């Protein structure tokens, strides 16, 4: 047992070890390395500046907003593969409600977010009630929605694209909140960046400072122990499915407003970006550990690659390959770091 006498279990915990124990430490290190790399390789001289920042955040913000909630869900031990297609579903739904059914912009957004919440609820309830892996349940939802996106859009518009929402009243007002640009010293940043930062702070607070956050860690760490301690594991997971789905819908609406329309295939494949961002950020795929800041850093790394590669005049086609390698390295380094931080006890 632990006594006052120092023994091998009572080694001094240095600040470095404490930093290494943070789940997002590896990601932060990786982000610095990759940022430096692209700054060196940059041919425009803008990558490390504000203009570059406006570029990479434009890519990273929509990924980050959903990735944060995907990370929370993964910490609770579940996946949501339908989060990517939900971006498309939400954008198409809001677009169709506005342009085809003539509903107002605000009510359409509200209906869309509610619908997304219900899809998340269905995902969650199916997972906790049937006990099937969320990988399978949400994979099914993914394909169901993918089909619906295409079929319903074609049925309503006759094409594979929703258009003409910019003539609706309140369109510009909605853009003000969800798709406007903010000028900082001549570089225009998307407002989605503010949402991204806001959600990072909110999710970090939720995860580390609230009882709900405690339940998220416990639900993923050991659901049986959590249940025995009186944690409502099922409710926690279902809530996170709802939040993830709604975050994806918010990004869908933002994209719709920014692009003034949406393709039926939008969002498909994005779910992997979210999972990569979360995993690169130190979220354990088996649940029980991770952070929201980590997912944000993971999304930022993707932004670096998406902007850095063309800035370096490299072939853009290699972006995915680059991300794949980063994912592997990051998870490898994270695992190694956390083992070291625990003193290789296990």
């Amino acid at each position: 047992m632990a006594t006052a006498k120092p023994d091998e279990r009572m080694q001094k915990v240095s600040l470095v070890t404490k930093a290494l124990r943070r789940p997002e430490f590896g990601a932060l290190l990786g982000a610095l390395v990759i940022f430096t790399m692209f700054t060196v390789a940059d041919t425009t001289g803008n990558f490390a500046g504000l203009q570059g920042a406006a570029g990479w955040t434009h890519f990273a913000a929509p990924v980050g907003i959903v990735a944060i909630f995907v990370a929370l869900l993964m910490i609770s031990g579940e996946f949501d593969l339908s989060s990517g297609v939900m971006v498309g579903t939400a954008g198409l739904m809001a677009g169709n409600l506005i342009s085809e059914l003539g509903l107002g912009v605000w009510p359409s957004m509200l209906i869309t977010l509610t619908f997304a919440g219900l899809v998340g609820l269905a995902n969650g309830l199916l997972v906790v009630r049937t006990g099937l892996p969320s990988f399978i349940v949400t994979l099914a939802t993914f394909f169901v929605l993918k089909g619906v996106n295409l079929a319903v859009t074609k049925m309503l518009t006759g094409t594979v694209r929703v258009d003409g929402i910019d003539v609706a009243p309140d369109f510009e007002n909605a853009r003000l909140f969800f798709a406007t640009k903010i000028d900082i010293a001549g570089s225009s940043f998307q407002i989605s960046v503010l949402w991204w930062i806001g959600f990072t702070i909110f999710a970090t607070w939720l995860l580390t400072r609230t009882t709900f956050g405690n339940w998220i860690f416990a639900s993923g760490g050991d659901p049986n122990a959590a249940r025995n301690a009186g944690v409502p594991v099922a409710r926690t997971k279902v809530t996170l499915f709802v939040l993830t789905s709604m975050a994806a819908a918010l990004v869908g609406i933002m994209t719709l407003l920014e692009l003034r329309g949406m393709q039926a295939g939008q969002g498909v494949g994005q779910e992997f970006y979210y999972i990569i961002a979360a995993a690169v950020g130190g979220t354990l795929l088996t649940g029980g550990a991770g952070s929201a800041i980590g997912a944000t850093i993971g999304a930022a790394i993707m932004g670096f690659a998406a902007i850095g590669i063309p800035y370096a005049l490299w072939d853009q086609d290699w972006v995915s390959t680059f991300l794949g390698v980063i994912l592997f390295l990051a998870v490898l380094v994270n695992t190694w770091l956390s083992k070291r931080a625990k003193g290789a006890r296990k």
Partner: protein
Amino acid sequence: MSAKASTKNLTPSLELKDVGKSFGSVVALREVSLSVYPGQVTCVLGDNGAGKSTLIKILSGVHKQSEGEFTVAGVAADFDSPRDAMAKGIATVFQDLATVPLMSVWRNFFLGNEPKKWWKPLGILDIAKAKRVAKEELLAMGIDLRDTNQPIGTLSGGERQAVAIARAVYFGANVLILDEPTSALGVRQSGIVLKYILAARDRGVAVIFITHNPHHANLVGDRFILLNRGRMTASFERETVVLDELIQAMAGGSELDTLTHEINVIRND
């Protein structure tokens, strides 16, 4: 020594009368009667498949008994879930299922009962209080941790069980059910857990110690119940039984004699 009063004029914290449980046509438990008193350790002994798990599940609110009476502090118990049992002060510490390894000690200590500050419905953790109370309560049980921030997975198995016991005691458990707390532990670690069982008892908790190890039971028990194939085969009080007899009975009684004989035959061949 245990500070126990005469049990004659005391209301049992928990009482079973002829309780049975069947799952369809399978009878898992029949005619079990036991009374558990505050400040006493009641040991439930039995081999694998004796019905210990079923008994725990009835006591902790996972299952309802099919027959017999189950009373808590003299009132008929009607638990729909472990939460109901917890609300009545019955806490269960499950072997290996008590704590979440990756979470810190203080988070584990308050898991499911987190202290909140400011406006309660917001569920904002009072982290300073949680850390302080966890440290103090663990110290009161004799567990001196340098840092309650460390993941509980870095503690030894005995210490993890001890934290779970300290947690149950802190949250006002009148009855503490320990499911095989020592079965996965070595001798020294088991000793740690047994010490905390006594610490809990001295705080006036009625402890139900489920084990298949007669030596561990003998060290801490005040009363002993033996289960075999779903039946209660014996019930002793510490004062009324010679310890050798007790250990003999706990170790299998006549079955052990048969086994000894059989093995001797094989060895002599």
